[in-house]
């Protein structure tokens, strides 16, 4: 029968039997060799992706916890640093005050000692001057006792005494 004359709805045994047998064979082969393999591959990939996502979430949670801990420690460190700075400033201020007080005390002592030394030196100088003056007076008196002292002698004696006094280095 020509195809053009064939009934589209006619049923022939050979194509029908071939369709059933070939389709069943295809189903069996694919069910044994293809679908389990594909399903296994997809499942493994699914597990891998889910595992990676879970690991990423865990890592993110850990990172968040670490960051919070870090921030907490940072704030604590800032507080500690502020307290230490405040304490150090107090200590430094106290040290400076002590140093200034000690310096002022020492300065006062130095001044007092210098004044005392100056007074002693002055007193010693006065005493030495007095002693020298007395010695000079004695000398002058001895010379006076040796002859009459007129105005001219007196002038010479004074000049001599002054020269001696000057030559004595005092």
């Amino acid at each position: 029968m020509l195809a053009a004359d064939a009934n589209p709805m006619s049923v022939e045994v050979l194509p029908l039997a071939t369709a059933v047998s070939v389709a069943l064979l295809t189903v069996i082969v694919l069910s044994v060799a293809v679908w389990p393999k594909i399903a296994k591959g997809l499942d493994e990939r699914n597990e891998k992706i889910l595992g990676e996502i879970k690991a990423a979430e865990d890592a993110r949670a850990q990172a968040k916890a670490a960051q919070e801990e870090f921030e907490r420690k940072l704030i604590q460190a800032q507080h500690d640093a502020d307290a230490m700075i405040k304490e150090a400033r107090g200590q430094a201020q106290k040290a400076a005050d002590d140093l200034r007080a000690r310096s002022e005390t020492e300065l006062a002592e130095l001044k007092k000692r210098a004044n005392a030394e100056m007074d002693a030196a002055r007193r010693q100088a006065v005493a030495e001057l007095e002693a020298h003056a007395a010695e000079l007076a004695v000398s002058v008196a001895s010379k006076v006792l040796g002859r009459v002292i007129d105005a001219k002698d007196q002038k010479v004696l004074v000049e001599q005494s002054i020269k001696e006094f000057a030559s004595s280095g005092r």
Partner: protein
Amino acid sequence: MMNTLLLAAGDNPLAHVLDRPSAITVGGTTLPLSVISLVVGSIVCIGLLLLAASRISTGPASEGNARFVTKGRIAQIIEVMVVTLRDQMLVPVMGERLAKRWVPLLLSLFFFILTLNLFGLVPFADLQELLHVVMGDHAAAEADMAHASSNAIYFGGTASACFSVTLGLAAISFVAIWIQSFRDLGVKGTLEHLCGGHDVVHGPLALWIVIPIIFAVELAGMFIKPAALAIRLMANMVAGHTLMAVLFGFGAAVLKAGGPAWAAGSITLVAGFFAILITFLELFVAFLQAFIFMFLTAVFISLMAHEDHGHEEHGHDQGHDGQTHAEPAPAH
């Protein structure tokens, strides 16, 4: 020569669509083209899916994370189709339990029918026929075109446009539906289902009046459902290909009617443009019909599950995932 080509074009577009004898003879029996297409389609389908499976499956550990990546475009396309059909179509309709049992059969049917449909889009048979007419004995060809050309075709045509083939595929669906019914419901449950269900059988006695009617309708439905699958697939394939053949036959019809060659050429150009558009539609129909065959088989199978499971698995109201699923389409 022109007469030869006109004869090759044929008077009846169905001549290019319906099943024809091939040039292959086994044991004195000439095999129809549909049989050859079935065998070749099965080999190609299995080969491609084996290739895809080897590329989708996890590779050796030495590849690192790349071992989880599907290699190759064809394998990636097949993977997308498998995942979409399984997770977006079959599991929501059938439920996890039924899907696990029937997905291998349903996916195999889908890809097998799809392969047959796509083969039909490639004019293997027409090219062989044309080559035979052009290269062969014109006089003999014009004398007995149909016989001469049929003996020159080794492979081609659309197997899924042959009713015998689609009936065979539907027979597999029919058996699967009954297996599911007897396996899940048992003989008594199946009979109850055919009589309208537990509520009708164990309901008021007055309902027993309608049970024979329900039984007859349900029993007929068990045969009509697969038959509808077969007719739907065959009719869609035949219709599209017939339309293509009609479009391509316009130019030849003009020449046969004694029209000028320029008119035939112009009409052929316009018809060819529309034929290209129709080809894209045919490509869509090839996928759509394979999907419909598989999906309706899944629906028919899931209707034969336990009623308590059915409510849960068919997702009439609220599924496990909290989403509202559409009720399975009726069986007609």
